[in-house]
């Protein structure tokens, strides 16, 4: 493995896999070997719904740089959204 750096969080929302939307239940976040990205280690995101079975999964594998950029962009966009909504 070989890092075994992985966390799981409960989430709400929707994901789309195999042409179908499904309600999300969990997100797995890991820094470990990717399945597809040409990297030894990647930031792996798995958006899943455990109650629907292992196939209900949207997988994303990012370079560490891309993952950090995504994380900061998400936070910035969320802040803008909150500001626009007066929160």
């Amino acid at each position, binding site marked *: 493995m070989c890092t075994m750096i992985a966390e799981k969080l409960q989430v709400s929302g929707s994901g789309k896999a195999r042409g179908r939307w499904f309600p999300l239940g969990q997100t797995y976040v890991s820094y470990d070997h990717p399945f597809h990205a040409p990297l030894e280690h990647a930031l792996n995101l798995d958006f899943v719904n455990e109650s629907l079975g*292992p196939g209900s999964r949207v997988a994303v594998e990012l370079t560490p740089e891309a993952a950090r950029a995504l994380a900061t962009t998400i936070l910035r966009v969320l802040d803008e959204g909150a500001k626009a909504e007066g929160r």
Partner: protein
Amino acid sequence: MQETDGYEGMLAETITVTGDGGDQIHAYLARPLGEGPFPAMVLLHHIPGWDEWYREAARRYAHHGYVTISPDLYCRDGHGSAEDMAAKVRAEGGVSDDRVIGDADGCIAYLRSLPNVSGKVGVMGTCSGGRHSYLVACRSALGVDAVVDCWGGGVVMGPDDLSPQRPVAPIDYTADLNVPLLGLFGENDRSPTPEQVAIHEAELKRLNKPYEFHMYPDAGHGFFYYHYPAAYAAEAAVDGWEKIWDFLGQHLAG
């Protein structure tokens, strides 16, 4: 290796074996046809799961004359594609070392029960499977006759790396290793790093254990995986397989 005028046949299929705790788990069995007696191998899959590469590897071992079994170490965790199951198990922190050792013992018992198996059994794995193979060689209740560790990360672990699933660093069991060990590693690997491999090798030397390690330049993690271009290192892979056949031929065959 078969001669061109010899008979050759193989049977490969999914079976059920009794694993750790008496649980029934799936395994892929590939065996050469014939009376034998054949040596046998247990293949412990890597963190990406019980995938196509392991089935192909099992058939390759069978082609080379080994009755070979590869258990689904994630069988209790559900069923789906190998990737989906691997993602699920990874999020749970991985399988426990004790459970893997119990599953391997179930496979060893199954192999030794077969009338065409010589009784000699080796264990091999890549990535986490290499680490697990080393653990099995050190801790199996039934024992194996040889072990092949291909770039097993996490043999050397710091206190912060330990977890409920992996409570003891495999290197700490080295005193219990009593069979020959073959280790194949890449210089560009980050898990295990060359420094970690050197620590492991020093411990083997200190305890006077039989081993041979090969560190390949220009190879990283998973250099056998031809289906993964970023990892595959053709020269190292070809030589690595030859090292495996030579090693197993010396310690399991005959």
